[in-house]
């Protein structure tokens, strides 16, 4: 169950490339794990490390302090590809708590919300503005549903309402589903007959 997230103020890391796919976020060879912990090392591994495992000094993700930059500002169609929840696990373990893009893949959005990594879609003008000043702290206020930075007018954003409630209040999604079990059982009794 993810940690509640109400307000986040942080600088950004910009990865402006379009179509950053899940194999970039975490290469498949790291998926043989049976744990969800400790995947931050694998995040963008082939962007950050040489074949011999030595860090690439020019890689932006090796040059920054993740604790200072908890917002990933990514190019369009971010996290397209696989359904691996290892992708948001790796990003969150690296240190990110939010991803901002002009478009984010469906399955990743769903997985990220369950990981406590907030995916936010903004329009291109807002994205360009944020990308121009990655060193300026940005405040993401989930309760108010707005991004605030400097003197600019707040930028509203929306997050699916149930997922938003879960993040704000730390609602446990599986627990909530379990509370629907009487409805599920009633549905099942009729449905099993039809599909037997």
């Amino acid at each position, binding site marked *: 169950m993810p940690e509640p997230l109400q307000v986040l103020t942080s600088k950004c890391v910009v990865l*402006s*490339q379009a*179509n950053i796919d899940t194999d970039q976020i975490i290469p498949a060879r790291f998926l043989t794990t049976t744990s969800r912990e400790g995947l931050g090392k694998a995040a963008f591994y082939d962007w950050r490390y040489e074949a011999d495992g030595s860090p690439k000094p020019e890689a932006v993700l090796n040059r920054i302090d993740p604790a200072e930059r908890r917002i990933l500002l990514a190019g369009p169609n971010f996290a397209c590809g*696989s*359904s691996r929840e*290892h992708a948001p696990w790796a990003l969150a373990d690296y240190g990110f708590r939010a991803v901002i893009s002009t478009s984010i*893949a469906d399955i990743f959005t769903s997985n990220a919300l369950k990981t406590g990594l907030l995916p936010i879609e903004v329009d291109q003008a807002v994205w360009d503005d944020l990308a121009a000043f990655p060193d300026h702290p940005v405040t993401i206020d989930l309760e108010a549903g707005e991004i605030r930075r400097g003197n600019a007018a707040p930028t509203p954003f929306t997050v699916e309402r149930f997922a938003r409630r879960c993040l704000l209040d730390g609602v446990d999604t599986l627990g909530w*589903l*379990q509370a629907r079990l009487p409805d*599920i059982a009633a549905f099942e009794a009729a449905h099993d007959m039809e599909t037997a």
Partner: protein
Amino acid sequence: MPETLFDKVWNRHVVTPETPDTPSVLYVDLHLVHEVTSPQAFSEIEARGLSVRRPDRTFATLDHSTPTLPAVDGVRPYVTPEARSQVERLEANCARHGIRLAGWGSEDRGVVHVMGPELGLTRPGMTVVCGDSHTATHGAFGALAFGIGTSEVGHVLATQCLLQRKPKTMRVTVTGRLQPGVSGKDMALAIIARLGFGGGTGHVIEYAGEAVRALDMEGRMTLCNMSIEAGARAGMIAPDPVTVAWLQGRRHAPSGEAFGRAAADWLTLRSDPGAVFDSEIEIDGNAIRPMATWGTTPDAGSPVGAPVPEPRDATGARALAYMGFTAGEPTTGHRVDVVFVGSCTNGRLPDLRAAADVLRGRKVSPGVRMLVVPGSEAVRRDAEAEGLDRVFIDAGAEWRLPGCSMCIAMNGDFVGPGQLAVSTSNRNFEGRQGKGARTILASPATAAASAVAGVLTDPRAYLKEGVDA
């Protein structure tokens, strides 16, 4: 109110409808499980003291981390101890929770999206989920099938349900007829090139039209399989007599009178006349040629032999630089190092036949490594019964055990750094088939022709029938 195929299947599975504050609770008929995306989900439900609600609606297989070379002295050649332990974890989880597993030694084992339909587990009108983005494959039967993350795998294990907002709908109509030598894979690549990599995001696609209806079930599975490569979580095709005939006699399909009743219901699952889609596109099937990708996204595709387009932006330029291709030139002049035939996209019997038809009596070009990996044990048995394995081996290709293999390259089968591969799989991302690997996506016939020629090649030159190019 006319309904779409998607509406009909969705509505049958709504336990509680969505409200502004909460998504629908959607019932899952079939939950397919593999070793990579499930261990953390089992851990989660066990930590809560929960059991698997419907083991009878859950079915597992081993495919992603499994070696495709046989055991030596009883020892399977896993790529790492972690891969072995991941497989053993699923074996233990299935044993503990009473879940059927097509494991080592099972004649049913296969790539999850090949195995499910083969066994008749996938049927029209069902909801099918799996922790795997290519779950859309099962939509070829008129099921609503989509990939989920590991947290959701846990939700389904514990409650047999998911929380879902209703997606938008898109209809892709392919008119006309495919030319000889042009397959469902080429149709899929042409559609994705048209839609763009994220063009289907937020949508469920229904594929329709004469050219789609003319595909066999395997071609339809290939088409639906790649829906995610346009960003769509699911792709569907309305069941028809081809679907019904394919399912008859499958082990988990109904039999006798029950089959007739089920089939009558399945044939009602079609979009009503006048049903409204959020978006529609139409493609001329007559105009589709054998397709190949030139970039590092599946939408970067064009007919084999066409010049590579000028990059539109820095991302496009990066893709060309990674691939080593030049704008304005065709990619057919580059030496191919590896050819891979297999995967949940193209690892079925007709795919292997298409590759074998090209290879029969020919040799894989010196310097090309060709790997043929059947999608399941059943495909392997059928292919060997027809002698396809001999065709591949005689041509100089390797004939392997079923698995995902080089498509996701996490089992030790991979394309080397800088090597150029022509692959029948579904993703050409940077490093997808191995660190530094360069991937051209194409059909089985194109892959086989490229293996013979040693460069990317239009397969129609190798087919017997006269071809109107």
